[in-house]
């Protein structure tokens, strides 16, 4: 019982288109000042989120990253509520408390984007361990970038998942750079070699090909669900935009125009089996519609009341002492 909206190539194309258009809208809203603080655009990497989520069941879970919109949307989050979150409105996924970097929807198994590189991986391992202990068939996908391969806690997590045989699918989105640092000069050895060294089956796939990602993810999910333990997928991909929207203030030279162009030619939307068919045009129109409703929802959602600023600080209900003078 995989995710219904990703069950066929058309659904996967639709979700990739949704992510792309969502990111374009978000970029517009950042530029116009509607979204404060900026975002890390996912454009170009859609095939990874969609391909992996296509292999998941609704009750499966994921942990995401600073570049999380794609994962959150692919798992099925409402685009209107994600947009509202970017605007910091009460109708947002997190009630406006999280913003782009912390978007979560626990009802859909989205355990949260995370502002700290690598931090999602051990959470995924623990969540997977707990689910298995409780007799639930849950598989947890953990997304992270090539930069995260150099975070100690992520490497510790590979080991922990390995010895626990935790039902985790580690998904490394190797987009070639951690901000400005090329993976080639930051990652000694190879991504898959590292995972394999911890005893985790690992494979590299074309991260611009949604069907290839889905096929590999299905193998990994099947292994996890049947008690075979964790797997590792390195998805070779590329981000079409800046690392972060604020990057446009700098004149950076870490990627050549040619390099960007050559990857844009491999746009995952264009290589979808549905691309070019009349169906695709219909889907594109559908998505425009969907996003305009979503935007409407977000823009009309209320601003939170400053008096509620410490709401939810403690799940137990403890109210913290104020910072104002007595």
């Amino acid at each position, binding site marked *: 019982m995989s995710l219904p909206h990703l069950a066929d190539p058309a659904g996967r194309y639709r979700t990739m288109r949704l992510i792309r258009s969502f990111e374009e809208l978000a970029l517009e809203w950042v530029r116009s000042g509607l979204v404060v603080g900026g975002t890390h655009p996912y454009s170009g990497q859609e095939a990874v989120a969609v391909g992996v989520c296509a292999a998941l069941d609704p009750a499966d*879970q994921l*942990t995401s990253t600073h570049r999380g919109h794609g994962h959150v949307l692919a798992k099925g989050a409402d685009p209107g509520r994600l947009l509202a979150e970017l605007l910091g409105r009460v109708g*947002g*996924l*997190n*009630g*406006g*408390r*999280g913003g782009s970097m*912390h978007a*979560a*929807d*626990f*009802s859909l198994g989205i*355990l*949260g984007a*995370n502002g*700290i590189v690598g*931090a999602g*991986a*051990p*959470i*995924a*391992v*623990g*969540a*997977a*361990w*707990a*689910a298995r*202990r*409780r007799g639930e068939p*849950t598989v*947890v996908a953990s997304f992270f970038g090539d930069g995260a391969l150099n975070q*100690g*806690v992520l490497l*510790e*997590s590979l*080991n*922990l998942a390995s*010895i626990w045989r935790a039902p985790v699918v580690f998904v490394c989105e190797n987009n070639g750079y951690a901000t400005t640092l090329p993976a080639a000069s930051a990652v000694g050895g190879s991504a898959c070699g590292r995972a394999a060294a911890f005893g985790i089956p690992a494979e590299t796939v074309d991260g611009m090909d949604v069907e290839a990602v889905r096929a590999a993810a299905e193998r990994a999910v099947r292994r996890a669900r049947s008690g075979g333990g964790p797997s590792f997928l390195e998805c070779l991909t590329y981000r079409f935009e800046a690392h972060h929207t604020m990057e446009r203030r700098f004149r950076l030279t870490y990627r050549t125009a040619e390099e960007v162009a050559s990857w844009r030619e491999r746009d995952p939307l264009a290589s979808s089996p549905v691309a070019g068919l009349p169906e695709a045009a219909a889907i594109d129109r559908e998505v425009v519609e969907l996003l305009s409703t979503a935007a409407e929802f977000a823009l009309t959602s209320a601003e939170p009341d400053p008096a509620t600023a*410490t*709401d*939810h*600080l*403690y*799940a*137990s209900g*403890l109210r*913290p*002492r104020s910072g104002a003078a*007595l």
Partner: protein
Amino acid sequence: MTLLSYAKAMNRALADALEADPAVCVFGEDVGAGLAGLTLGLQQRFGAERVVDVPLSEQAFTSAGIGAALNGMRPVVELQIPSLLFLVFEQLANQAHKFSLMTGGQARVPLTVVVPGSGSRSGWAGQHSDHPYGLFAHVGIKTLAPATPTDAYGLLSSAVRDDDPVVLFAPAGALGVREDVTAPLVPVPIGEARIHRPGSDVTVVAVGHLVHQALAVAEELADEVSVEVLDPRTLYPLDRSALVESLGRTGRLVVVDDSNRFAGFAAEVLAVAAEECRLLAPPRRVTRPDGAVLPFARALDRALQPGPEQLRDAVRAVLK
């Protein structure tokens, strides 16, 4: 008479928690062998799937505790050394503590971290002798430092049931304390101070094992001055009303706190007193020095911890 040691009380609290709730589990190094006492016998009783020996990956297993908590478990993480809390500071302060607010209340992280043997254990030197409870209180994680076996039982029980992350410091200096336990052991609410000895001249706020030192000094000075010994038990959230009431009675304050002075727990107590009370004399702190690193040699190690003479001097100073 049933004498219960502090270490055994912790062990019993954990056993009772494991017994009462299948969601409770334990992650820690050498917990099967029970080297730190906390988990002695528990793996045999509850199985290696609930009392889990983990590799030396404190960051990953602490965060795995968060993940497990998100999926309905109530993990207890044991750390063998107080300074391992530094190693997992990111996981506790930046992840566990922030999840509830950042998700707009979708998530809760009922994770308990226990250090069975915090502060100095003579001969363990610079990296094994810290008492960093002030750090957790500052970031706003519920922070406990029980002084007695019944409080150790009661606070650990409450910590495991609490829906927020909690760090419990079991001071090495208190692990050997024994208490005659007649009443049944019960949970102690987080956030409630305890007056161990009423008095009318000076309030001595004492933390953890120093409660016993404070009681001894109070007894010793009984002819000279009436000392009230207040044990906050929970360092954060602080029971401010108990503090303010006590100071209303005594008007004088000494805090004895086995951690670094600068911006430590004692500083907060003095600050609250300054804001909310009218003291009859300037308050005093008895603490470690600023920025203390405990040297190995026993005489040096002791020289940097609050001692009874210093407490005596402080009590006399506020009486002047």
